[in-house]
């Protein structure tokens, strides 16, 4: 039989076979891997840009980067990290895990899945190529406010626009795939309210994506027509309004920040029960809190524009709506803590990252609450305090969440346990470096250091030096992460089927590594977990 099969399939060179495998794959696991590697690659590219920024800010004055180049770095760093790292990273995890967690053989639309992924490398090539163009890359900040991006944008802005369009198409198609998969391919018996929380948060995220990515596409299309086709959406000369850009952008932008964090909530809700060896506390309230956060995200965009000129009653409405978000978020944090309460906790690397996520994300949440207050925001607006805030929610939030997920599920993906000692070193250096980098920004911001400027006053020098040292450490830490991932792929202690002693869910009933095809017939639900066979690293 084997000989016959070889006769039928024409022999390909190893390179062609490799290309064909990855270019044409419709397997959710392989596409998930592709997404994760793309995200990882861009993580280093975006990280290198952050290094340039921190190198320049190491001392006051202009040493390494010309102001224009610095602005390009700030812009590209933001765009790459938001659209190229966090979003594809979460989509990769969704691809790998959602079918495994709901007992589906694959995503509902495997070929569309392949298409969604392969748009992205082209989109980011387009975006990154603008760095080498005359006039430089986009330099107006990742929020691309008009008229900076319309009237005054460099010629490469058009590449940015098309790149954003492509990312948007990819995200929307990916989100449609996720929703259709979750609605149609759950194993019999798994009702919506029995789904794992990672699946729930991704379902909500996918709805957010479908509702706001087209708005982003709309706003960049208006920019494009303003730039080249004589419309005046954002130009006062033709009857448009530049301030309207901010409204439309942030109508997309605020739900977007929850797109960047909700799957992280889901990941923490999977990991903490596993290592606390207890069921998740308050499952229903977790689901409703996620949905409430998603709903509220649509009515708070104005808090990004308090200083842009607004009547007091509008500011107050946005302020109260924003502060209301603290309630469902508080419910979540409470539930995570309550899950750990009197649990038999162990502190393997995924759990450490999940705990780092809960604690540091909460700090970011508190600074968010401070920014929500209109009178306070007038002082904080556009200072490094804002930078500290969103890096606290994004780095320990979205990035730590993704890393926790990688450590948690990589034994299932590769069949090998990662190096626990290196994982712990990774966590502790990362957590120290994150705080060293971003905590001083609170102080410089409160003292009035504006963001997005290449130079700063002398009194901010010490804190900036601390930040830069922290950033260098943080950058090196991620090289260690890359090493750990590669080492795990290449070998290590064999992982058992259940992997973690306290793990629960369908993905832990398939062998490690997960075979190419899983759940060709729907599995039984609730799953029967293997009690004897589990690798516990602390034994």
């Amino acid at each position, binding site marked *: 039989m084997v000989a016959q099969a070889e006769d039928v399939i024409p022999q390909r060179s190893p390179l062609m076979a490799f290309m064909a495998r990855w270019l044409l794959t419709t397997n959710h696991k392989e596409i998930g891997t592709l997404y994760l590697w793309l995200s990882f690659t861009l993580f280093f590219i975006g990280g290198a840009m952050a290094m340039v920024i921190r190198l320049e800010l190491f001392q006051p004055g202009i040493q390494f980067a010309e102001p224009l180049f610095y602005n390009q770095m700030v812009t590209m760093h933001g765009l790459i990290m938001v659209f190229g790292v966090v979003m594809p990273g979460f989509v990769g995890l969704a691809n790998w895990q959602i079918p495994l967690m709901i007992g589906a053989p694959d995503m509902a639309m495997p070929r569309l899945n392949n298409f969604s992924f392969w748009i992205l490398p082209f989109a980011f090539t387009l975006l990154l190529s603008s760095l080498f163009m005359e006039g430089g890359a986009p330099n107006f900040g990742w929020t691309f406010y008009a008229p900076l991006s319309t009237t005054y944008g460099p010629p490469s802005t058009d590449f940015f626009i098309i790149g954003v369009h492509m990312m948007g198409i990819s995200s929307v198609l990916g989100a449609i795939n996720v929703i259709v998969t979750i609605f149609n391919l759950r194993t019999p018996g798994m009702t919506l309210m029995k789904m794992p929380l990672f699946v729930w948060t991704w379902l909500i995220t996918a709805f957010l994506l479908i509702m706001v990515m087209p708005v982003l596409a709309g706003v960049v299309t208006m920019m494009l027509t303003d730039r080249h086709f004589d419309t005046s*959406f954002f130009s006062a*000369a033709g009857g448009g309004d530049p301030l*309207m850009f901010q409204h439309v952008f942030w109508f997309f932008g605020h739900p977007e920040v929850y797109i960047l964090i909700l799957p992280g909530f889901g990941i923490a809700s999977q990991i903490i029960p596993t290592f606390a060896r207890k069921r998740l506390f308050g499952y229903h309230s977790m689901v409703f809190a996620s949905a409430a956060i998603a709903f509220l995200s649509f009515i708070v965009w104005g808090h990004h524009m308090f200083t842009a000129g607004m009547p007091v009653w509008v500011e107050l409405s946005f302020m109260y709506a924003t502060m209301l978000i603290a309630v469902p978020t508080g419910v979540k944090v409470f539930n995570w803590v309550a899950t750990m309460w009197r649990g038999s906790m162990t502190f393997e690397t995924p759990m450490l990252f999940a705990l780092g996520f809960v604690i540091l994300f909460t700090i970011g949440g508190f600074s968010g609450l401070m920014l929500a207050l209109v009178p306070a925001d007038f002082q904080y607006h556009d200072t490094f305090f804002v930078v500290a805030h969103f890096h606290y929610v994004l780095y320990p939030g979205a990035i730590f969440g993704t890393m926790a997920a990688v450590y948690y599920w990589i034994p299932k993906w590769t069949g090998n346990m990662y190096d626990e000692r290196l994982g712990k070193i990774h966590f502790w250096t990362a957590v120290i470096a994150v705080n060293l980098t971003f905590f001083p920004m609170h102080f410089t911001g409160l003292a009035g250091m504006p963001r997005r400027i290449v130079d700063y006053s002398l009194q901010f020098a010490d804190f900036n030096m601390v930040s830069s040292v922290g950033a260098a450490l943080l950058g090196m830490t991620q090289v260690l992460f890359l090493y750990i991932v590669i080492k795990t792929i290449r070998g290590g202690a064999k992982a058992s089927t259940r992997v973690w002693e306290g793990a629960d869910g369908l993905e832990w009933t398939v062998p490690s590594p997960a075979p190419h095809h899983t759940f060709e017939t729907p599995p039984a639900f609730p799953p029967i977990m293997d009690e004897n066979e589990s690798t516990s690293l602390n034994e």
Partner: protein
Amino acid sequence: MIETYNNQRKHIVLLISLAVGMFGFAYALVPLYQVFCEVTGLNGKTSGRARDVSTIYQNQVIASDREVTIQFLANVNNGMPWEFRPATHQLRVRLGELNTTDFYARNRAAQAVTGQAVPSVSPGFAAEYLHKVECFCFSQQQLEAGEDRHMPLRFYIGDDLPEEIHTLTLSYTLFKVPTVRASTLVSNRS
């Protein structure tokens, strides 16, 4: 399986329409934003339409005794080669009374230039009480090289102006309309 497949198709169609609908919604935000600003007077936008003078004198018996100060500002936007200033910087006007003033503009460029003045009222919520009968901002203005013009503005302030407002500022920013667009652009905003 067939049932699942049909369900899937239904879901896909619904979700794609949601995405397309949201793209349309982004565009719908533009007129919504304009209407919202005009209705509430946020942003200091004045109505782009001229008031019919005859109705003023029919409906409003006589101007009230209340007087307010109205200040005029004129700015030119980047790249607009015009000199642009108000004839008077400040007027003391009675509510409901029709007033006339003018703005002076001179084209300092060596070729004809078309401009569009965009108004803004401060405080913003007073915009809805400022009624213009005639304004150079209702249409684009074209000046030949070196030509100058006194551009009239006739307006009155509604006598329902809230008590706490004593001073209004009406500011015009003059934008250059690119020549290729001048003929095709229809301006319906003041």
